[in-house]
């Protein structure tokens, strides 16, 4: 679960990580008041769950409270489009107003779990302010990495060594090591999947501050953090992904595809996407209905797929285990009739009650092509798409 910068900033502050003075504002008038309280230049930042805000005009450095008000007014309520948002952008409902730090150096610092190391790691780089993936690609040597131990955590000596390797001046080594230790505590105690400070800055007056922060919380651990679960902002989610999540489905919209996929199992769903391309088209979505989806969940899955205007055909691939494919067929038929969607459907149904499921679909009056294997489904899809193109 992603949270906003202002929420991440508060969590960091709670854990003793120095952050710039500032507050979050819902209105431009509030933004002005905050800027007045701070005094001096401030930065006004759109609060959206997407990177690339700066280039998209979502971050403005201004000199006066009036300018802050104007900057906030120009950001709030207007769709912000970045490479990480949907094409229509997302609408910022809040702005962060914070002191504009006088930056001497920009660093990068993050904590995450490393699957290979089977432990949390802290990564840092002297190349702050840029995307870490870029650094990893172009300057892997610039990335410094220390592992935590599951028993003793992130040893202070390792945090100190990391600070030294970042080339910090002697008087900042200790504060930086403390900061790294606090970042790690936050990461583990709140079950984060990512805590990223980018940039972590050294100011001209010799402080070290988390200037921007990104925190992602582990969905699977929110049950033990009810306070954090409340930080969720549904405004930031893709509407379809949100609907899918509510129905217990795992759905990811893929840009530019025209074949809607409905599959049970994540691996089979990816395989189904892959054979879609093999059949000459791009998948419009990833959709795993899970191992034991109900008729209703299947119907909702169908509705979500067809609500995507780019979808021209549907590929259903269900391998029934606990999942009963006859129930799934009923769900599909009900949703198709309800939505009036008349898209061609390629169906591969195997496993529990598959014959009955296929029979129900064949007799439903829907435009269904049946297949009995993954390659058969690819062939059928190729045919259907060829028809559609005609």
């Amino acid at each position: 679960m992603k949270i906003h910068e202002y929420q991440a900033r508060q969590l960091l502050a709670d854990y003793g990580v120095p952050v710039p003075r500032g507050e979050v504002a819902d209105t431009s008038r509030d933004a002005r008041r905050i800027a007045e309280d701070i005094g001096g230049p401030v930065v006004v930042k759109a609060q959206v769950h997407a990177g690339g805000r700066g280039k998209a005009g979502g971050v403005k450095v201004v000199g006066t409270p009036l300018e802050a008000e104007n900057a906030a007014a120009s950001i709030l309520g207007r769709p912000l489009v970045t490479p990480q948002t949907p094409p229509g952008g997302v609408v910022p409902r809040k702005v962060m107003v914070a002191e504009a730090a006088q930056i001497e150096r920009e660093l990068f610092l993050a904590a995450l779990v490393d699957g290979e190391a089977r432990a949390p790691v802290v990564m840092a780089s002297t190349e702050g302010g840029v995307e870490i993936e870029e650094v990893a690609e172009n300057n892997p040597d610039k990335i410094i990495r220390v592992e935590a131990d599951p028993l003793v955590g992130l040893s202070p000596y390792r945090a100190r060594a990391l600070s030294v390797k970042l080339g910090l001046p002697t008087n900042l080594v200790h504060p930086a090591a403390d900061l790294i230790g606090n970042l790690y505590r936050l990461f583990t105690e709140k079950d984060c999947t990512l805590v990223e400070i980018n940039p972590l800055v050294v100011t001209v007056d010799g402080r070290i501050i988390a200037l921007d922060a990104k925190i992602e919380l582990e969905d699977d651990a929110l049950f033990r953090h009810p306070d954090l679960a409340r930080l969720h902002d549904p405004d930031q989610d893709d509407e379809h992904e949100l609907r899918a999540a509510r129905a217990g489905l795992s759905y990811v919209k893929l840009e530019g595809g025209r074949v809607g996929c409905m599959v049970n199992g994540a691996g089979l769903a990816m395989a189904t996407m892959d054979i879609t391309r093999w059949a000459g088209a791009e998948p419009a979505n990833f959709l795993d209905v899970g191992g034991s989806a109900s008729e209703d969940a299947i119907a909702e899955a169908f509705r979500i797929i067809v609500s995507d205007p780019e979808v021209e055909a549907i590929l259903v691939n269900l391998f029934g285990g606990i999942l009963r494919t006859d129930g799934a067929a009923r769900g599909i038929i009900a949703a198709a009739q309800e939505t009036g969607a008349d898209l061609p459907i390629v169906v591969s149904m195997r496993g529990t009650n598959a014959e009955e499921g296929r029979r129900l679909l064949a007799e439903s009056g829907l435009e269904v092509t049946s297949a009995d294997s993954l390659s058969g489904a690819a062939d059928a899809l190729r045919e259907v798409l060829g028809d559609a193109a005609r």
Partner: protein
Amino acid sequence: MSVLVGPDTRLLVQGLGRDGSFQSSRAREYGVNMVAGVHPGRGGQKFENAVPIFESASEAVDRTGANVGVIFVPAPFAADAIIEQVDAGLDLIVTITEHVPVLDMVKVLAYLEGKKTRLIGPNCPGIIQPSSRVKVGIIPANIVQEGRIGVVSRSGTLTYEAIAQLSQYGMGESTCVGIGGDPLHGTTFTDVLEMFENDPDTDAIVLIGEIGGTREQSAAEFIKTGVTKPVVAAIVGQTAPPGKRMGHAGAIVTGKAALASEKIDALRNAGAHVVNSPAYIGRQMRDLIG
């Protein structure tokens, strides 16, 4: 035991809720020797009027000699159940449960170090072995048949797909192992590849990988020097965009190494036969071992 399980497998099922009970029934129908259940508050009862249920895993092991455990308990309690089964001294623990918090798994995996117990999963379909009629987990029994192909996979339903394709071409399985879709998991591709290599009942191996992490690269490293049997491999997720999680916690492209193309290259360089489409697993295997 042959690969992980065998005729001597004495199964303990922890968590007899809806899924655990349903799957235990299916597994018993198939023929597995389920000797014990563990479900707090139900100690003293019997599952299907036949299998004793205990309050704790250690009691179950002491009383029944169970040597393999399977875990169906809900995610918030799964890590504790694994530790309980480790402490009870089981040889093998198969954790079906999905959504186990990753920091729980960090501790569980560290806890396992130096202990005799092997963990499969979490978030995996488990193991099925037709020759001994042992089913530990949720792989549907009706799709497998006895044969000489070992199947190892990160994914559940895709494993079933691969099995179906093998059947289509007249081949059966020695043992099928789902290692699970989470980034932190107990048993790796490499572990299972080594078992298949040493298993006299296995002639060839199907390996099904996906995007995310570098497990397939590790497998490729091992295949280079450690596997003489033919390996047919499929990597799914070629069409997945970077940064988006495809269902499985581990199925996300976060760097170049996590891409399907990198994994395919690594496996091809190691001598594995990587199919271009996941639809061709069975055909490729037939071409190889006729």
